[in-house]
């Protein structure tokens, strides 16, 4: 008597003894081999940080000292016009990640606007937001948070 037949005998026995209530037959499907791709592309964020602008919580407006700072950077750039500027916006860890991605972009764009107003051609500027994904300070203190609410300018 094969295994299958014995299985059916088992079912029949069950029914005979307990009455033919619904019997559900499940076959667990083995977890198929899920292949893991380990593509680790590396984006070389070349260019050091030439300047960092800081922001208040939940805000992307610039205080006057920041504007002065950006103006200075714009002037520095004009003497080096073969290069490009990359403005990266960041946020602190509070709030949701996607909303922070958008907020980071607002910060980067605010800085870019001032650069353009001060003579930097817009086609030389790229803005990127990293939201809260790339903090410089860890920890959940006001001090750490303040350090992360920033826009970084890199010359490429």
């Amino acid at each position: 008597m094969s295994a299958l037949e014995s299985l059916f005998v088992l079912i029949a026995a069950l029914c005979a003894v307990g009455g033919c209530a619904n019997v559900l037959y499940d076959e667990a499907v083995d977890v198929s081999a899920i292949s893991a791709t380990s593509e680790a592309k590396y984006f070389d964020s070349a260019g050091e940080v030439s300047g960092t602008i800081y922001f208040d919580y939940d805000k992307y407006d610039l205080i006057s000292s920041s504007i002065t700072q950006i103006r200075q950077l714009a002037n520095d750039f004009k003497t080096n016009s073969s290069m490009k500027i990359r403005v990266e916006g960041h946020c602190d860890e509070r709030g949701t990640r996607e909303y922070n991605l958008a907020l980071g972009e607002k910060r980067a764009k605010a800085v870019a606007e001032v650069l353009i107003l001060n003579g930097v051609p817009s086609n030389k500027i790229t803005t990127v937001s990293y939201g809260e994904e790339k903090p410089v300070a860890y920890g959940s203190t006001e001090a750490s948070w303040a350090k992360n609410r920033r826009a970084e300018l890199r010359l490429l």
Partner: protein
Amino acid sequence: MNFRIIFFLFISIIFSAATFSHLKIEITEGSQNPIRIAIVPIGWNLDNPSRGYLHQMVSSDLESFGEFETLTPQDMLSLPRNEEEVFYRDWKLLDVDYLVVGTASQGEVPEEVSVSFSVIDVTREKTLRRSISSGSINYLNSLAHVMSDRIYEEINGIPGIYSTKIIYINKEGSSNGKYHLRLADIDGQNDLALFSSYEPLMSPDWSSDGKKLAYVSFEEGSSKIYIQELYTGNRKGLKSEGGINSSPNWSPDDRYLSAVLSKAGNPDIYIYDIKENSWKQLTDHFGIDTEPDWSPNGKKIIFTSNRSGSPQIYEMTVSNGKIRRKTFEGSYNARARYTPDGKSFVFVHRMDNLFHIAVQNLRTGKLRILTDTSLDESPTISPNGNVIIYATKNQGENILAGISYNGKTKFILPTDLGEVREPSWSPILKQSRSTRLF
């Protein structure tokens, strides 16, 4: 004489006006104790030394989310192997509500184990269901999960989630640590990395058929959306646009992704047609519109917008573009996710500068804060609507935590992988082939 008549009439009026209605008593809550279920060690007709292992796995499954309380074999007064051997008094004495008895034997092929088991209602002395579940002896935990799902379904009337999985983002602890998109069974087993990168990964979302994932990767220098097939590992990057490309979310029929693009100047909600490889703009507002989620019936999209000055939840009807604001309490409400029945949504709600996970009923507008942890984000809800997993910070560590929908059971998902965040719960996966006999 007349006054006697008058008073008599008065009395009869009182008696007739008193309508004695059929008494109705309302029971609004039950025992605070979880359901007590005894999984009797499965009778084992095989040579394999894993005898008795199954009942432990099923018991541990059922206890996962606080809904059940199980007995150890030492507590049991008898160990019936089938329905005939059940002596109800032994179980009623122990205040057991449900009983599972069964035996395992060899299946069709040598590696196959077949377990026939019965789910019994002890109080009513009635067998509720007989099932035969089979699987490979090398994957006994999968078989146990299938059994747990069947038992759960029979007792609760809704699908069990023991065979489901989650995907999440993990960042290694070191400063230049890699980012991984990871997959794990809901009990934490079989954890593996599906994609790794030196640049950030965000917002993973599971497709409705459980076969594909969408997520955001910064591997090319800025946020881009990718679709990856779970079983083949094939990846495809969506046609990238300038600015933000993020927050992908599958439609219930998996034909579209809702997402956020800022190419038009500021972040707006767009729909991506997968077949046509084309984008369609849904919202057009100078503020931030982000974090879309499709309703279970595919007719609406809920999203976050700061158009009123601060982040709040809005709901849009896809067919006509009508938008209605949903949250009015508090100054920060974001990242809404519909519950599987489409009647409520879980979201991040800030109160007193603390970020909690809350749930709000779409019809009544009633808001209920679920968590007492703070810095909470990214809630994901189980496909049966009973459990929520979310990311939070505990003693400086970024971890995943869970809470039952009724708020009564709380747990933490431990990890030694570094930072973990942004969980996404799978749909009910077809882990078993079911045939109904008789």
